């Protein structure tokens, strides 16, 4: 009897256990089916998202950017992680995340050395001592928000620091308009907007000292001022055309002086570019500028400019041989108490890439002076440049200058080392 009771209990327990096992298996099966359905749904959703967001690019037509939908943007992954075939794409790696609140910072050193003599007088053009760190340019660049970016370039010389450029750009404006506000180098002619370290020579051409800067002692001459710039690319078929209009406060070195708030200066520039073929292209520009000079508000200086650049690059050996020919013509009408000084200046240059990292060039200068057009200065330079890498550059330049006042002649041998450190980040817009 006792054994029968124990056996019955075992049978009941086994039955209950089997029943529970059956229910558990059924639950697991149900949950597995549910999970499988969820995985299938997620896979379908992912495939749909990929299909919706992938934009095919055709080989012979310009790709067109489609504005992303809010759904696409909200589902776009933004975190870190490894880039493996499995996980979703990665944006902003650890390097960018670590400096997310800092701008890209770069530093360019411009070491210059000069030797030679100046017969008939000690003054020469932008005199260069035996050795000087002529300029250390610090750059700070960052995206402010999705609509704007900021660029600062501080020129640190041996005698002080200057904001060479500092402006906010709005590159996302409708209609292809690019607007900048701040202090900047004006888009007058070809070279005025160039920083010193991007020039193909150690110095700037005579015409820039005589007509755009007014001071032969400033190595970084040219029109630079605080104001607003607006530019737009104009569709013109095979020709690329860009129009730029700028309004400035009216103070730029010794060229323009704003005696009162309404003494503004203005710059207009139109630039056209044409590819003759795959190896040769040509660029032409016309410029106009007007501002008040230091004589007073009723006295203005007007500048007219024309610039031409021809470039050639052998595509079969694209990194070895290239040529660039440049010329720029500037006319100046400067009003002062004695009447109007009408001066003209020109430079022309030829630079040839002889080997992969070597460039040979020459430049001639001829310019009257803006304040006294009866004085004509002329110069010739020969330049040899070596690029050890993208981040450094060594250059030597022989310069012979004949000054119009007192028949002074200066023969100088200049030497330059350019080097850059820091961020080289790019910001796609």
């Amino acid at each position, binding site marked *: 009897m006792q054994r029968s009771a124990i056996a019955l209990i075992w049978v009941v327990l086994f039955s209950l256990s089997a029943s529970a096992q059956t229910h558990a298996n059924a639950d697991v099966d149900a949950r597995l089916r549910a999970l499988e359905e969820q995985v299938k749904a997620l896979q379908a959703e992912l495939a749909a998202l*990929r299909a919706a*967001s*992938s*934009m095919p*690019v055709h*080989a012979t037509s*310009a*790709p067109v*950017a*489609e*504005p*992303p939908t809010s759904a696409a*943007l909200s589902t776009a*992954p933004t975190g870190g992680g490894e*880039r493996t*075939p499995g996980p979703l*794409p990665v*944006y*902003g790696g650890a*390097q*960018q995340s670590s400096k997310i609140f800092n701008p890209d910072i*770069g530093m*360019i050193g411009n070491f210059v050395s000069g030797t030679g003599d100046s017969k008939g007088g000690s003054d020469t053009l932008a005199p260069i001592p035996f050795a000087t760190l002529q300029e250390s340019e610090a750059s700070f660049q960052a995206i402010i928000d*999705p*609509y704007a970016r900021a660029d600062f370039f501080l020129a640190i010389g041996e005698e002080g620091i200057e904001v060479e450029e500092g402006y906010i*750009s*709005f*590159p996302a404006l409708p209609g292809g308009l*690019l*607007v900048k506000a701040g202090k900047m180098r004006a888009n007058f002619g070809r070279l005025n*907007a*160039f920083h010193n*370290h*991007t020039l193909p020579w150690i110095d700037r051409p005579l015409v820039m000292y005589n007509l755009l800067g007014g001071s032969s002692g400033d190595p970084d001459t040219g029109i630079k001022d605080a104001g*607003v710039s*607006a530019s737009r*690319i104009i569709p013109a078929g095979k020709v*690329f055309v860009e129009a730029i209009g700028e*309004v400035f406060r009216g103070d730029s070195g010794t060229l323009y002086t704003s005696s009162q708030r*309404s003494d*503004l200066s203005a710059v207009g520039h139109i*630039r056209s*570019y044409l*590819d003759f*073929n*795959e190896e040769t*292209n040509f*660029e032409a520009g016309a410029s106009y500028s007007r501002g008040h000079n230091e004589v007073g508000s009723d006295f203005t200086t007007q500048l007219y400019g024309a610039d031409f650049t021809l470039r050639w690059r052998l595509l079969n050996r*694209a*990194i070895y041989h290239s040529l660039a020919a440049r010329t720029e013509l500037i006319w100046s009408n400067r009003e002062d108490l004695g009447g109007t000084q009408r001066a003209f200046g020109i430079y022309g240059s030829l630079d040839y890439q002889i080997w992969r990292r070597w460039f040979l060039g020459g430049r001639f200068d001829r310019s009257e002076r803006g304040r006294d057009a009866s004085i004509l200065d002329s110069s010739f330079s020969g330049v040899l440049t070596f690029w050890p890498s993208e*981040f*450094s550059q060594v250059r030597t330049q022989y310069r012979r200058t004949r000054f119009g006042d007192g028949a002074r002649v200066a023969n100088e041998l200049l030497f330059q080392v*350019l080097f*850059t450190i820091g961020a*080289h*980040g*790019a*910001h*796609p*817009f």
Partner: protein
Amino acid sequence: MNIHTSRGSRSWIVAGTFGAVIVSSLTACIYVPSRRKAAAREAAYFSAHPELPPSIAKAIDQGHVLLGMTKEQVWVVLGDPAHKRVFGENGSIEIWLFPAHRLHQDQLHSHGTSSFRLTFIDGRLIVLEPI
């Protein structure tokens, strides 16, 4: 009188310029900004090309353009070119022009230049030069 008229017109020029900047900025807010378009391009490209070499993926992620990139990869980084020409047999050579503010990776030679010129042969970038 002329001086006063001239000063008045200058004031209007200044007011008009700043007004245009402000209006343009506000108007821009209703558009999808290009920066977000770039992010969307990256998202789409990375999704479609999980096999990308790490060097190319890193360059695209950081907004750099490298020699040897395909046209599509350059487009992902920089967007549509401002100007484009096609040369060569079967259009094998393409030249793209971009405004300089799109790219800042060669600061020694590019500060102050207005454009970048990119040359592709058979779909690969072989020349990148500031002009």
